[in-house]
């Protein structure tokens, strides 16, 4: 038992240690990156250890001294958190490998600061994943916002500065004005902030309070990018591509929807959630967000902006899954956190590889690029299929459960919204690699380069790994499914 709790603390301690190493070795880039790689391997190993302890039925937890009377910082491992931590730490490893290739290939400045804050962000993500109550969640949630800001404004120019303002403004703003009062009201009305299977609120809680709280939570977790508080995500795209890939396709945004799932399952409880009046209204808002974001994405020519809006849309899937308040919906949400992570990070890796190898950023410039970068474009194709939810990729399964969830609740409008959005996905994502390989217009024949010129090896390696996992998850989704199925849903 005590060993397992040691694992839990180790998963939080690795990032600060890594930062120390990174800063100390700042004058030796190879060693510095070595520290990052080592730390990410160690973190992934620790998280696998935590996963195994969980499978053996151990309860891992840690509590601090009292911060406020009756309120402590608490860490606890539950299936969803273990899943999130596993994905984030594994993708950190992949991203570090990718970042080494990207940052050097692109000649970025201030790389020590970059790797240090990158490690700090991942440390905060571990805190979010293993948080045992709302206070701890909020602490790491805010630290994550703050520690990613230096990464967003990495370029240091006016555009980055503006993006950083929008980024932090929306994230801090929503968390202070909506999330914090929601937490305080929860504490005020129940006297507890712990995550409890089946929810915190007693039967006779004022339904108006629950309605208000749900709205506050959904908007307060700005990282879930529910419209109209989604602007920060496109703004964050000024960051270097590895940041966009890991943080704004996986860690930060998933910390948002992960928090929502956790709040839905452990603070409200599915039974209570199903009875909340404002839930239906929010459900349709999520449906609107996922359609509207897809439509906006279609109009974006900048590749990263298009991917950002696609992320907004996919996050709404997860939010929608929780708000359905049925077991299938939660399963779908949990799976989608994983599936979308692998798909979207691959897409961002590809976008970065294209930038490094051919300095292209706009979708319209990519026609015919398939000949120059066949490997990247093939990976792009598979990942986009995963996002759209088509075989042979893992995304199929999460979409499957989400659809089942909407059918369970009989909300056919939402089923239709999911289908339409998936179709839009195919249009605005899958067509990009298709056009890269088979140019329909036939123009620019002479200008198109024919020799193969891919991104640095490190980048290609990372892309290969994540793409392979996208496909593998179609064939072997059981481990993930079993983990998600362990989420205690209370009476549901």
């Amino acid at each position, binding site marked *: 038992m005590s060993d397992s709790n040691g694992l839990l603390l180790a998963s939080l301690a690795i990032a600060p240690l890594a930062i120390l190493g990174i800063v100390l070795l700042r004058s030796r880039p190879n060693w510095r990156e070595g520290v990052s790689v080592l730390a990410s391997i160690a973190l992934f190993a620790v998280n696998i250890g935590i996963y195994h302890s969980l499978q053996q039925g151990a309860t891992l937890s840690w509590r601090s001294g009292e911060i406020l009377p009756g309120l402590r910082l608490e860490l606890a491992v539950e299936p969803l958190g273990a899943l999130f931590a596993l994905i984030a730490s594994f993708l950190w490893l992949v991203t570090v490998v990718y970042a080494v290739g990207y940052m050097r290939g692109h000649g970025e400045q201030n790389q020590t600061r970059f790797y240090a804050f990158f490690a700090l962000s991942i440390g905060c993500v571990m805190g979010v994943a293993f948080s045992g109550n709302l206070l701890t969640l909020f602490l790491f949630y805010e630290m994550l916002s703050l520690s990613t800001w230096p990464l967003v404004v990495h370029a240091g120019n006016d555009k980055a500065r503006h993006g950083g303002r929008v980024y932090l403004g929306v994230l801090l703003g929503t968390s*202070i004005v909506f999330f914090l009062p929601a937490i305080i009201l929860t504490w005020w009305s129940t006297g507890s902030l712990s995550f409890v299977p089946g929810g915190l609120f007693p039967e006779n809680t004022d339904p108006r309070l629950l309605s208000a709280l749900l709205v506050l939570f959904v908007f307060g977790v700005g990282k879930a990018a529910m419209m109209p508080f989604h602007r920060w995500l496109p703004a964050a795209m000024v960051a270097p591509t590895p940041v966009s890939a890991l943080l704004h396709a996986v860690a930060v945004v998933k910390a948002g929807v992960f928090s929502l799932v956790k709040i839905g399952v452990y603070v409200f409880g599915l039974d209570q959630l199903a009875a909340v009046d404002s839930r239906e209204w929010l459900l349709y808002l999520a449906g609107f967000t996922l359609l509207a974001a897809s439509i906006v994405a279609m109009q974006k020519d900048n590749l990263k902006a298009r991917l950002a809006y696609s992320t907004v849309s996919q996050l709404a899937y997860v939010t929608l899954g929780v708000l359905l308040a049925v077991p299938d919906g939660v399963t779908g949400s949990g799976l989608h956190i994983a599936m979308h992570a692998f798909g979207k990070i691959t897409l961002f890796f590809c976008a970065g590889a294209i930038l490094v190898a051919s300095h292209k950023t706009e979708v319209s410039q990519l026609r015919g690029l398939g000949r120059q970068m066949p490997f990247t474009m093939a990976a792009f194709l598979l990942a986009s299929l995963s996002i759209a939810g088509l075989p042979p990729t893992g995304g199929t399964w999460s979409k499957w459960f989400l659809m089942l969830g909407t059918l369970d609740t009989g909300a056919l409008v939402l089923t239709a919204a999911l289908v339409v959005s998936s179709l839009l996905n195919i249009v605005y994502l899958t067509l990009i690699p298709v056009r890269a390989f088979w140019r329909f217009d036939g123009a620019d024949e002479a200008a198109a380069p024919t020799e193969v010129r891919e991104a640095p090896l490190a980048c290609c390696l990372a892309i290969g790994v994540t793409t392979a996992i996208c496909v593998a998850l179609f064939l072997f989704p059981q481990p993930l499914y079993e983990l998600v199925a362990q989420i205690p849903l209370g009476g549901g």
Partner: protein
Amino acid sequence: MLSQLPLLPVLLPLLGAPACALLRRPLAAWVFSCAVSVLALAAAIALLAATWQQGVLSYALGGWAAPWGIEYRIDLLNALVLLLVSAMGAAVLLGARASVWREIPEHKRTLFFVAYLLCLAGLLGIAATGDAFNLFVFLEISSLATYALVATGRDRRALVAAYNYLVMGTIGATFILIGIGFVYMLTGTLNMADLAQRLPAVGQSRTAFAAYAFIVVGVCLKLALFPLHLWLPGAYTRAPSIVTVFLAATATKVALYVLIRFSFTVFQVEYSILALPLETVFVVLGVVAVFAGSLVAVFEPDLKRGLAYSSVAQVGYMVIGVGLGTVAGLQASLIHLFNHAIMKGTLFMALAAVVLRLGGSTYAQMQGVGRSMPITTACLLLGGLSLIGVPGTAGFISKWYLVTAAADREQWLLVLLILAGSLLTAVYIWRLVETAYLAPRQSPASIAPRALEAPAGLLAVLVVLALANIYFGLDTRLPVQTAGGAANGLLAAVLP
């Protein structure tokens, strides 16, 4: 020795001041005043421990028993304020050397420390005495010393700021004097505990109402509650850096103590909060102060002045807590009193280091300071995060209690306004962060030498203060329990 304890924190600096004036060499004066203030701090710590164990301590000055003689009466509230003021007083003084040597001409340095000790004695005296008139006298001792301290600023505008402060401060103090005169006429006593017993009998008279009104207005002038805050930005901006740190961390806090003491002990709650519309007045003025102060701070080109306006805003938060008129509200107010002293202490101390090295604190001068003074800027950032109320810092605890207290009263709009105020704070703190870390480095000609951090003494105090922001964000027993005990002691008999 122990029986004399309630007097010691006041007596030490009060006697230390003239003794300090005898010292010729400024360095000796500094060392001496440091020793005095540290001793006062030790006495204050002992007092707090004693009040926890024994409850209220009473000390009859000169051996004259309570209603006739002057009584020093220390309950948890007094002890908390005494501890805060003496701790900040000692900390600021310990880090003061480099900054004072830079900003004060040599022949004035000894007298500077004399005035500082007098000011400290006055503030501690206010917090220790149980006699209304004695309180006025100490108020004037601290005020007069403050005028002199502000006027020692390098800029000639410091003189005008000190003059304006003198006029406003004297009007405020005279208002308090009028109010005290009225209650004396009504009851024939000046002892606060005695007043508390006798006032209810005559509480409905117009004289009592006038007395309370005069006292509240007078104290609010000292407290710089919007719209009586006009003296504060000038005085904070123009005063020597060290004086600003000291005033920001202590003076308004002591004024808030006076407000609480008069509202809740002398004129008890039934009268001050329940019978009069003060609840509304305090909450509304507090909210307006939060927004007015923060908005000005957002657009202010000089950070020191911006933070001065931010103090106006933070006073608003404390007054909101008082105006809620509940135990929880008062507790929140006291916790914020404690935490804000630490935050503003950190921020202005960091600015003292910045002014020491860069000669000013405008955003233009501070461009790229994150590179040249990394430790100072990190402390500035910590203080700023605490001011915003980011979890893990002391400011978060303040916000938590204030919002909970407002929720208890089911004032949802107030909850929203309190948090929206934090957002404005985030705006001006982030303006600082962008300036410090993102601004393009200065042109090569003006690049300063690398080793630009302040001297070790100043830096050490600064780092301790900055870490205190985190410490009191995680281990909140001292402020929370003491403030809770004090609030209960004042209100529990009357209110839920």
